[in-house]
């Protein structure tokens, strides 16, 4: 009987604490959301300003080509950076660090639970 009374106390206190702590977390998260600056629109792509190809005739680069080249150059720089100095780098080849979060977590696939196929 004593045990049961102690158990009820533990239940009341325990659920209270769990709710209290998670409520504190909620407050904290709400506060953080309040303090966080509103999301700024994504900055314009950092096209190197010097990269202006002007010329005449059929040889001129179209804006699309230019954009493609710029993207390729930026990606190349990023991948060179990733390959620098293997002794010290914190991410390993094949890193998911630079993949989109959506892809990295495989979230699009999480709706269906994993089932192994039966032979």
């Amino acid at each position, binding site marked *: 009987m004593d045990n049961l009374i102690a*158990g009820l106390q*533990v*239940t009341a206190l325990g*659920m209270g*604490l769990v709710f209290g*702590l998670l409520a504190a977390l909620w407050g904290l998260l709400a506060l953080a959301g309040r303090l966080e600056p509103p999301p700024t629109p994504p900055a314009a792509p950092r096209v190197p300003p010097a990269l202006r190809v002007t010329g005449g005739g059929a040889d001129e680069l179209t804006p699309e080509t230019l954009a493609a080249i710029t993207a390729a150059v930026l990606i190349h720089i990023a991948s060179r950076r990733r390959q620098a100095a293997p002794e010290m780098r914190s991410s*390993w080849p094949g890193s998911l660090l630079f993949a989109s979060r959506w892809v990295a977590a495989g979230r699009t696939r*999480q709706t269906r*639970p994993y089932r192994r196929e039966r032979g």
Partner: protein
Amino acid sequence: MSAELLTRLAHGPLGLSWQALVMLAVAGLLIYLAVARDYEPLLLLPIGAGCMLANLPHSPMLAEDGMLRVLYDSGVANELFPLLIFIGIGALTDFGPLLENPRVVLLGAAGQFGIFATLLLALALGFTPNEAASIGIIGAIDGPTSIYVSGILAPQLLGPITVAAYSYMALVPVIMPPIILALTSARERRIRMPYSQRPISRRIRVLFPIATTVIVGTLVPFAIPLVGTLMLGNLMRESGVVERLTKTSASELANVVTLFLGLAVGSTMVGEQFLRLSTLAILVLGILAFGIDTAAGLLFGKLLSLLSRGTINPIIGAAGISAFPMAARVVQRVAHEADFENFLLFHAMGANAAGQIASVVAGGVLLALMGAG
């Protein structure tokens, strides 16, 4: 031919007690569930194998310096292995859905009610307070938390509690849907929730695990190991600067520790200790804990739904039980069946992540209230 040599040879078969035979059958059942039924094979297969190796007659693996004993002493007796697994879980968990939807956080708290209800039931059945708390912790529906807490409070029940915890986690897709269907109306299940994409800055993502550790750890020191390791893994993940460590924690280290943990837990399941009425009681109480958790989460979800004037679908409350991330996926499937276009996964994931944190907090609170240490 000396009689002594022959005695030595007959030693083995003669050592096979009926308890050992039953336990070998139990080991076979666990391996069957893992291999043929895909019930949490990553843990149930090693547990079954450990149980088998421990119950063979005169098994040298349980002797001093035996492999299973060494593994138990080096990672279960001191609770190292479940904590290392928590680092890996933290490294794999994305708390983004929770950060984007903080209001679902309380659903995680409601989903822990089964812990305490089961504790009361176990006390009523005559278990000691520490044993009752260990049985209750199955209601955290979280493997490492169950192992950690019961390993401290009642190591003699570690085997059945762990087996119950992991078996029932594998049964999430079977146990939850009928309870959800019984407690909610089709109209409720069809409530759609808008997906408000609020980008979460890296700063918030990094600060979240730190703040959680400090707040929970200060208020409930007994929760420090559980919360601290889970959040350490998440901090490594979100910081993005130590991907080598994150990757190793979540794969190689987690794999080795999972194997060792399973074998060591399995080795605690030896005859006389396991074949008791208490084991049966634990298995029954465990499934009750599961059901009560789900129901409590759902009812609290209904309350929130009322308070929010129907903008919250109550069934995401069922995901608050933890069992990350299967519970959220089951909720999504139920919503999907009620309304093909209803996409609740993201909100359910938020409640599910909250349940993961709440489970760990509840584990620490329980240890504190039982005066463990």
